[in-house]
Each structure stands twice: as C-alpha cells, then as structure tokens.
C-alpha cells in the first residue's frame, strides 16, 4: 500500500470491560489500577483505566493496517496524556507528514470522548 504526503488514516476501537484484564495477562503488567475497580477508586481514579501501552498498541496497529503489514512499522514514539477509560470508543488518527524515498513519517494521536489520551505520535513507516 502507498501512503502519500497529506494522506490520513483512522482506526476506531471500543475497549470492552475485560480488555484490561486480558492485556494484563498478555503483557505481564498487573498494576491493580487496571484490573481492580475498588483499588482504582481507592487511589482517586474514576474507575479502572486502560494500560497506556495497550492504547499505544492501537496506534501501532493503525499504522501497520494502513501500511499493509507489521514489517512496515520502523519506529513509533508517543506521549501519554490523561487516562484511557474502558467501554468508550477511541479514535486513532494518523497523518502522513512527509515521504522520503521508501519511508513515510506519520504524525498520530489517539482521542477518547474529545480528550487526547496519546499525543505527539511520530512513526516511520516503509512504503512502496
């Protein structure tokens, strides 16, 4: 697939209530703020929250699906801001900033309910 300058892509995903449980098991990150509702509230959170790295994996997936495969994602850098909540739709957007040779530089962010939970995403993706 080709990604040309100025092109945008989008991925929408709604994390179901058990995503954080499955991701804890898959990743080994069992921080109770992600898996224990009572604990999360006891430390002042509104509810259990998503793992930031799960959300980053959605940003990565937006790129690999747009570019045509996992081998095309060469680098990805993000900043985490705010909290990702379970049960509410997340929209990842990517915008191709530049293409030089076979490498596209893509800016990205992830929003949930109008809040940017990942920002300043920058990726390098190989293109045909």
């Amino acid at each position, binding site marked *: 697939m080709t990604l040309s300058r100025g092109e945008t892509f989008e991925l929408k995903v709604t994390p179901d209530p058990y995503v954080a449980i499955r991701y804890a*098991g898959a*990743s*080994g990150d069992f921080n109770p703020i992600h898996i224990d509702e009572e604990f999360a509230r006891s430390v002042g959170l509104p509810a259990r929250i998503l793992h930031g790295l799960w959300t980053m*994996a959605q940003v990565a*997936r937006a790129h690999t699906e747009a570019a045509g495969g*996992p081998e095309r994602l060469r680098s*990805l850098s993000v900043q*985490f801001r705010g909290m990702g909540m379970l049960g509410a739709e997340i929209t990842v957007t990517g915008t191709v900033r530049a293409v030089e040779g076979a490498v596209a530089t893509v800016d990205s962010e992830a929003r949930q309910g109008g809040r940017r939970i990942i920002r300043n995403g920058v990726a390098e993706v190989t293109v045909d």
Partner: protein
Amino acid sequence: MPPATDAIGKIYPATVYAVGREKVREYAAAVGETSPLHFDLVAARDAGYADVVAPPMFAVVYAGHSVVQGIFDPELGIDFAHLVHGGQAFSWGPLVVAGEEIETATTVKEISARGELSFYVFESVSRNRSGKTVCIGTWTNIVRSGG
C-alpha cells in the same frame, strides 16, 4: 528535592526472553490484531517467516522484562505512588517470531527534574540470537514530587 543522578549510565544485567507461539497469539488477541501473520502458522510460513510473527509492540513483553529492573531499583528509589508513564518510543529491526530468544540490556539513560517533576528515562536494546538489534526502546517515567 531533585532526584540523585548518580545512577545515570547504570547498566542492568541482560535478560533473555523466550518468545512462545501461544504467547504471541495471546498478546496479538489482547491488542486486537487481525493479521493472520500473528495467529496462523501456515500464513506466517507462506509469508517467509519461521513461525507466527510477534506484533511490533510485543517489544513491551520481551524488553519489559529487562526494564522493570530499573523501575524497581532501590538505588533509583522511584516513588510508585506518583509514577506515570510519560512517553514511549520504539525503533524496530527485523520482526521477532515465535521460537526466538531475545536478549535485552537496559541502561539508565537520563535522570532529570523539571519543576516538581522527576524524569527517569531507560533505554532497552534487544537483540536476537543472530546478534541483530530487533528493538531499541526509550521508556520515559515521570514522578510528581512535592504533591
């Protein structure tokens, strides 16, 4: 009080992570991957890979095993109650597939303060058994002090 910076440059003992086929499938399912390369052995082999392919972000699993040494290092004394994951960067080499063993070395790259925020940045370098670098990770942890 700004954090002590003596540990900058500290290198933790390398860890080795054995990538399992079912672990790759479990991780890929947990993050919603749809490509058959992550699940289907035949599809992966048809595409030229020796086994199912780990999604790039699977680096958090094999490299995370190494980075936790820094996060839990008493010399750094990171205050978990006020710790947030501020940023993350990865750059990737060849894709990792099930059956590989990945060795990761983590170093303390930066300790700094900005206002009441302390920054602890770790760098992980992961290599496969052929010596190829499969992933370099930069893990930025932020601790809010004085709160």
